[in-house]
């Protein structure tokens, strides 16, 4: 039952609401005429309903969650709790500076930390997730070219392995996208790159390690080529966890990048955000960073806006981005410190390589068997549909029955029937071993009783859902008039 089906007309929980006189002198024409249909439940009913709903989720706090490209590491509770201190929560974003030094110092120091780990010289915390960071970065590149009077560059290069946000962000910045293919070993096809580069090239977007789970070894050469063609390099920082303190985007030749703090810096993903996607850049692009930016003078912290940075690509939100997420990332980075960051990369990589080897030994096919795993790696079940009639999606669903969240499926698009697996550094050997055992068990099932996989999941609140119906008989908003649904929730 949904919360509306649990509602009763005129039910109230008035201790939460102020006692207003319920009168207004405003003219009737300006006023709402009919109440909105919102839930009418007691506080207990609401608490019970949403507590029960929460139990219908997998999460890091309850399950191993090796979702590739998503870095589902432990979200420390201490970080969350500190960020929820009443004094932090109550501060208004436009509070006067002298009543804001605590938070501004945190944000300033976070900027400095991000500069250091990325090898960049400028940072703006404004973008509210990775995709907005990409947009900001590409817009900075655009502003750079235009500032130089170079209006001809209207193409952005994006590898075929790239995350969907990359081409989408480039398009939102007004660019045409050219896809660059990947070679069989997982590195970029340099011939194709050469063919694509021209005076129309504004830049290229790259992830390294790529979404294929391998480190692009030719990166220095790629940077050289793109720069020589007059383009700039954008680094998609979604995979930064793999290389923290090992190699820095700035040192690899990238001009601008974003970081996914909700991945690398462990801010909780909240069932779909909020995240935070600060952009970092080198000197060349600093003038174009989005505002506001925190600056410091004589121990006083303050905000830079367009009046200080006239060339800025602009503002990305009403205030300063997802501030309390930034605060969480700051706290996490202070707990880790420099050694801790390096350790994150090391143990994330160790776990991924271990898992990769164990699965390979168990008979699973690696997409890039000759390569080291970075913090993640890909197995392909491309033989399974023919052999067993079982797809990667079926395996994903069956994993849920074994108490593991599924890896990322069908991404990157160029590897057929792929599972992109990222265990992260905070998972124990035991958790990895259990995953391997589940995979082996499913492999056995595929051979002996594929139906059990095809009909999975069996242990979740619902069985396989009808996605086609969801799209065809679009039902986005609950309406009372709808035909009564069949209730089968009771035993």
């Amino acid at each position, binding site marked *: 039952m949904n919360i509306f089906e649990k509602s009763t007309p005129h039910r109230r929980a008035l201790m939460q609401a102020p006692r207003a006189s319920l009168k207004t002198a405003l003219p009737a024409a300006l006023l709402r005429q009919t109440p909105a249909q919102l839930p009418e439940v007691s506080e207990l009913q609401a608490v019970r309903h949403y507590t029960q709903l929460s139990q219908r989720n997998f999460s890091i706090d309850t399950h191993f969650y090796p979702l590739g490209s998503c870095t589902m590491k432990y979200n420390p509770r201490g970080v969350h709790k500190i960020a929820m201190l009443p004094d932090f929560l*109550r501060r208004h974003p*436009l*509070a006067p500076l002298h009543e804001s030094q605590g938070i501004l110092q945190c944000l300033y120091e976070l900027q400095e930390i991000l500069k250091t780990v990325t090898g960049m010289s400028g940072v703006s915390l404004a973008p509210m*997730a990775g995709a907005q960071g990409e947009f900001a970065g590409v817009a900075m590149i655009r502003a750079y070219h235009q500032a130089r009077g170079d209006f001809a560059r209207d193409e952005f290069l994006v590898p075929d392995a790239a995350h969907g946000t990359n081409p989408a962000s480039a398009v939102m910045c007004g660019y045409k996208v050219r896809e660059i293919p990947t070679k069989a070993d997982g590195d970029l096809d340099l011939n194709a790159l050469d063919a694509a580069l021209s005076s129309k090239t504004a830049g290229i977007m790259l992830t390294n390690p790529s979404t294929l789970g391998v480190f692009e070894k030719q990166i220095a050469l790629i940077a050289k080529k793109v720069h020589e063609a007059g383009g700039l390099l954008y680094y998609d920082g979604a995979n930064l966890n793999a290389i923290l303190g090992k190699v820095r985007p700035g040192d690899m030749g990238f001009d601008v990048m974003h970081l996914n703090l909700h991945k690398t810096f462990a801010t909780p993903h909240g069932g*779909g955000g909020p995240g935070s996607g600060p952009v970092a850049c080198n000197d060349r692009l600093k003038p174009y960073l989005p505002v506001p930016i925190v600056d410091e003078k004589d121990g006083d912290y303050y905000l830079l806006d367009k009046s200080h940075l006239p060339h800025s690509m602009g*503002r*990305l939100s009403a205030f300063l981005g997802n501030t309390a997420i930034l605060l969480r990332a700051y706290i996490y980075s202070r707990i880790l410190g420099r050694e801790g960051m390096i350790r994150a990369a090391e143990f994330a990589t*160790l776990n991924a390589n271990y898992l990769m080897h164990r699965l390979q030994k168990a008979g699973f096919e690696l997409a890039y068997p000759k390569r080291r795993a970075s913090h993640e790696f890909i197995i392909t079940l491309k033989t399974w549909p023919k052999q067993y009639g079982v797809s990667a999606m079926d395996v994903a669903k069956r994993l849920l029955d074994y108490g593991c969240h599924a890896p990322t499926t069908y991404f990157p698009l160029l590897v057929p029937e792929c599972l992109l697996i990222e265990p992260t550094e905070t998972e124990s050997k035991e958790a990895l071993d259990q995953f391997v055992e589940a995979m082996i068990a499913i492999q056995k099932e595929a051979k002996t009783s594929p139906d059990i996989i095809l009909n999975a999941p069996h242990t979740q609140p619902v*069985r396989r859902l009808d996605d086609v119906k969801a799209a065809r008989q679009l039902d986005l908003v609950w309406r009372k008039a709808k035909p009564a649904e069949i209730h089968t929730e009771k035993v």
Partner: protein
Amino acid sequence: MPYIPHTDDDVNTLLETIGAANIEALFDEIPAALRVKAGSLEPIAAGMSEMEITRLLSERAALDKRGVCFIGAGAYEHHIPAAVWEVASRGEFLTAYTPYQAEASQGTLQLLYEYQTMMANLMGMEVSNASLYDGASALAEAVLMAVRSQRHNASRHVLCAGTLHPYYRETVQSIVNAQGIQLIEIPFCKKAGTITSDCLKSIGCDEFAAILIPQPNFFGAIEDVDFLTRFAHAKGALVIALVNPIAMALLKEPGQWGDTGADIACGSGQPLGIPLASGGPYYGFLCCKQALVRQLPGRLIGRTTDKDGKTGYALTLQAREQHIRRSKATSNICTNQGLAVTASAIHMSILGFDGLRNVALASHEHNQLLIKTLTAIPGVKRVFETPTFHEVVLHFDKPIKTALNALSQAGVQGGFPLGNTHAEYENCLLICTTEMQTAGDIQHYADVISSL
């Protein structure tokens, strides 16, 4: 090691299985020349224990402690029932990813579906998405969406009320400019503080894809939304309503504007259960008419059934999104503001419409009381004459800095200095009231001003 469970034995076993001599060997594909130079990370301090960071950050938080808040200007302090974040912070909501595996994410999915229903109902619109980053970027997406969906109107001009929040305007511009979309500002009436019919005459742009109407507007004043909606619809343009969702418990909802309602409604969901927290995370909501649903950016949750015919929920119309459609997606948005929406859904459930209405009325009542109390002080007067919801612009005959400092000393954050964004209103404050202040707080404010 902080958060890392590996014992020495574990490390050895893992390396043996891999066949690597040490962890460093796992990074051997990275060209040596690119590797981090020794000492590069030195500027970052060594790690701290949770105990140490808790003390440090508690001290910093205390630095920003303050008294009663009369600042609004786009972020509003309302009471949030404790149950809201106590439940929203449950690990299962907090630490889940985007619900790609629907069967293992029914909690988040059903909640988002319920949220979509609540928000659509509150706005009087047919559909709602499951969130965008914040109110300002949601407005930018609304503009992109409006232009995109105007098949019979090729204009890339969008009319924008001059009473729009200036930071919203800046944000929209940063985002839509690259696509060649131009915002045309409608100057506001200096007397009314709103867009009047006279203002429309001076625009000099007859072809436009959409109009953008804030309600209440940046000055707290209530726009004549019916008139503006009819005006735009008559020109074949779409109407984008930017509204404060709490105000919609009292003022006419977008779905009822003009004759056929606004086409798109958006805004900041912050007043619905999200703490001020220095500016975020908030969330942007975006609702529209059913006809526009395929142009709607962001996640959508649909109700469907499972193999047994049992009700379930799943992400739907994913073909609009970047992870499927890539460069042809309606937007690049991926991670959005799920947790904030989670809190909002719980918030609306606990308050119900009556609760929200009480909040709206109390905020409005306090606004009336504040105007009455402060304008009774010689030298304080209203700047605009249109009725206000819960914010108002007042002019002081003293330098704003003096007033604000005195208030600050007395434990009051007096408001937003309008001169910061509108140079011509130098000695003016934009002052906000909600249900959070008491009559005593307002009197205290007045006492400080009187004593200057």
